[in-house]
């Protein structure tokens, strides 16, 4: 009976979402306060019912209710409780429900904190959020019901995809969705602004922390996904330019552009149309990400479901949301370039260049991701562009970004001065070149690694010099407001990231070997001794576990236990052993037993020495922290001024007369 209640809750949530999406819009249009006031209660009610539905699904998983098809497909009696909870979003239907739940959480937060916004505007913003929710609720109810029954009820279920049975994967989808859905706030603001044919600077200021927070979550989600791919897939790579990875990377890039564009629009009033367009794109790409992963249009290692009916629905939804927004943009976007003028040498220019590069990079990733599809369409046969395309073009586009990064903070708004830039240029050039030369000795003169060090030092030195300048010049207590501190953290994160990528890519050592017990392999200054493999068991798997003792110059570094697990349903999954460190990771994956002739107990093993790879995720986490810190700035919490109230009242009176 309970699962049907879940379905009922979703239907009620859909009705409330319809009310939230339609009534306030009519209210804002007709100047009816009562209708506008329905937005908040409707949003709260919708959130309650979605939470009930979600809770019922969790309950079904925790209590092994295999009469629910989704539960039976994705869990079994032996699955530990934490993975049973995570199994809720382990496949299509449940992850869609999670999407909706998170959308509701953001909407409720928005409803709670938007009391200071002009009434008409807040009503429109909440209505747009409601309309987005309508689309997703219709989608889940008509094509992807998580509460469908399975009769007769099986005694035991199948299994959660073993690839997903990992802590990294438990957190990855919710955090990623927080990011995706978070961009709906900036989107709703822009649509509301277009509907009202006005884009006030104050409203952009109000949207900024939401965008920063969403981008922070998205960063965290991507980092978790990358870490999971590294630890779980057993290839030792951290990014594969896979369509699904790209699907989350495109909104990230556009979100990055949006954060900076919003700063310009809020402080100077310029780039308004561009900011609106970027917020539409950021959310559209989030929807597109969902589309690409769910519809089976592109095949990928991550693909969950290939159901054409779902694909058609998402495409229709995407067409309405994105097409409608862009149509609105075409009709209502600010016609004249507003805001204060700026010189060629100014912070605006640097931010604009960065913005364009991020947008182009995002388009480049989109093109590469869709290329196989274009190949099919033009009958060119199966084509996949893969890492060579991305690996060449992406760094090329990011090079100017890296070069410009230190100068942005140094330039003034409107009209910058050249003199301080020369001093900065001299200092960071000297720092970068000196560090690169020193590093060259340690990396045997490998150019790419030295370039990596130079680029990282270039960014870091510029950022730290700016921090020092603030320390010297700004009065105590106002040196590092949260917004500025967030920027510094994120830029430092970029430096750490760049160093991690280039150093680990160049200096990594990989070795595929067959090892008999007692054999030693020497890699990257470490000795890996294979001590054989034995059987071991976990809650829902059995495994061959290899024992590899690592020593360096005779001193023991650690014992690594790579596993090759066989789950209950027969799926095989490698579980790499990783010895993590600040300056290097050691990584061992167990391959196949390779008995030959008179040698018994030999296995094929994959050994990696990966210097500085942890810096990649460390940099990502710093960027995330930067996003969150900037979002916390007090300046963004606007007060509703008396004249704004008066203006709203006037507007209402005017519309009531009309």
């Amino acid at each position: 009976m309970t699962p049907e209640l879940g379905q009922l809750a979703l239907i009620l949530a859909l009705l409330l979402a319809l009310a939230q999406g339609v009534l306030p819009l009519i209210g804002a249009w007709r100047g009816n306060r009562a209708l506008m006031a329905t937005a908040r209660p409707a949003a709260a009610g919708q959130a309650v019912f979605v939470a009930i539905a979600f809770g019922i699904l969790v309950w079904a998983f925790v209590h092994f209710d295999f009469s629910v098809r989704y539960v039976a497909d994705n869990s079994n009696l032996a699955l530990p409780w934490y993975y049973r909870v995570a199994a809720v979003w382990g496949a299509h239907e449940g992850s869609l429900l999670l999407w909706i739940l998170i959308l509701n959480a953001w909407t409720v937060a928005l409803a709670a904190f938007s009391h200071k916004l002009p009434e008409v505007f807040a009503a429109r913003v909440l209505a747009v959020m409601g309309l987005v929710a309508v689309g997703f609720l219709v989608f889940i109810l008509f094509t992807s019901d998580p509460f469908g029954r399975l009769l007769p009820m099986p005694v035991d279920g199948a299994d959660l995809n073993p690839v997903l049975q990992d802590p990294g994967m438990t957190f990855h989808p919710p955090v990623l969705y927080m990011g995706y859905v978070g961009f709906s706030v900036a989107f709703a603001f822009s649509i509301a602004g277009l509907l009202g044919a006005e884009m006030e600077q104050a409203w952009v200021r109000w949207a900024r922390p939401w965008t920063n927070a969403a981008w922070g979550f998205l960063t965290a989600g991507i980092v978790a996904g990358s870490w999971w791919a590294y630890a779980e897939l057993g290839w030792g790579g951290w990014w594969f330019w896979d369509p699904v990875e790209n699907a989350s990377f495109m909104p990230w890039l556009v979100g990055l552009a949006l954060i900076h564009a919003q700063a310009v629009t809020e402080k100077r009033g310029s780039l308004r149309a561009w900011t609106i367009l970027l917020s539409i794109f950021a959310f559209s790409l989030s929807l597109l990400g969902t589309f690409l992963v769910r519809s089976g249009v592109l095949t990928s290692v991550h693909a969950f479901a290939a159901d054409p009916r779902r694909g058609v629905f998402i495409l229709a939804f995407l067409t309405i949301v994105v097409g409608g927004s862009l149509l609105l943009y075409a009709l209502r976007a600010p016609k004249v370039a507003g805001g204060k003028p700026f010189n060629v040498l100014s912070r605006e220019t640097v931010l604009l260049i960065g913005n364009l590069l991020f947008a182009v990079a995002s388009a480049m990733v989109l093109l590469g991701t869709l290329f196989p599809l274009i190949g099919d369409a033009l009958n060119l046969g199966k084509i996949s562009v893969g890492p060579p395309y991305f690996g060449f073009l992406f760094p090329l586009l990011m090079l100017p970004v890296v070069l410009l990064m230190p100068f942005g903070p140094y330039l003034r708004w409107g009209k910058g001065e050249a003199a301080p830039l020369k001093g900065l240029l001299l200092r960071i050039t000297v720092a970068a070149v000196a560090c690169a030369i020193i590093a060259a000795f340690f990396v045997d003169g490998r150019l790419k690694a030295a370039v990596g060090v130079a680029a990282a030092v270039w960014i870091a030195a510029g950022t730290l010099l700016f921090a020092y300048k603030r320390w010297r010049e700004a009065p105590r207590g106002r040196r590092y407001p949260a917004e500025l501190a967030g920027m510094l953290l994120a830029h430092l994160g970029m430096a750490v990231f760049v160093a991690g990528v280039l150093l680990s890519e160049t200096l990594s050592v990989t070795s595929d070997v067959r090892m008999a017990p007692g054999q030693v392999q020497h890699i990257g200054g470490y000795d890996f001794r294979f001590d054989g493999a034995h059987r071991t068991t976990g809650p829902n798997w059995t495994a061959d576990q290899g024992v590899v003792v690592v020593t360096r110059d005779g001193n023991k570094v650690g014992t690594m236990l790579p596993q090759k697990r066989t789950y209950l349903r027969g799926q095989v999954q490698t579980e790499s052993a990783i010895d993590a460190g600040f300056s290097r990771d050691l990584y061992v994956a167990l391959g196949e037993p390779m008995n030959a002739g008179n040698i018994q107990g030999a296995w094929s093993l994959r050994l990696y020495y990966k210097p500085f790879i942890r810096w990649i995720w460390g940099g990502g986490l710093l960027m995330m922290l930067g996003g969150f810190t900037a979002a916390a700035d007090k300046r963004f919490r606007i007060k509703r001024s008396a004249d704004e109230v008066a203006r709203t009242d006037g507007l209402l009176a005017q519309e009531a007369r009309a």
Partner: protein
Amino acid sequence: MSRSLPLFGFLLLVALFGFGIWWNTRHDPNEVPSPLINKPAPAFVLPLLDDPAQTVSKAGLLGKPYLLNVFASWCFACGEEHPTLMAEGSQLGVMLIGYDYKDAPDDAKNWLREHGNPYRMVVADRPGRTAIDFGVYGAPESFLIDAKGVIRYKHIGPITPEVIAKELKPAIAALQKESP
């Protein structure tokens, strides 16, 4: 006008996605057909692994169908495939030729000594240039080439007993029907 550009760009994307959905309902998305199938195999001249002084060419192999199996001692998945080839390679009904890909000859010889040699002969392509003509993505890959030197079937990834039963055997049977 310029404000409508994003809309038009997006509509183009929608058309592309609509096409993608339509296409996927009609095709198996996991199949990667080789453009070389039913085309003549590229001409090649490669040395034998055991005796580099002797070479094998496409022309020399004409007249009988054969299965060209790309492998390498460094290749992980080839180790997975190898027991299957050892067990079933001799019962395929066509000659099994090994194609040692980007490999040091001594490593390859050791590897074959350790795991057994299922091949009638092994050709070596150390620089991997001929493999480019064949469109090799990576090892293991297998090409079924008929008596006229035309590629009839291609398999990417390890050959499993299932692949042999479901794909390779029917393809070989089709060859044998043609040339009595």
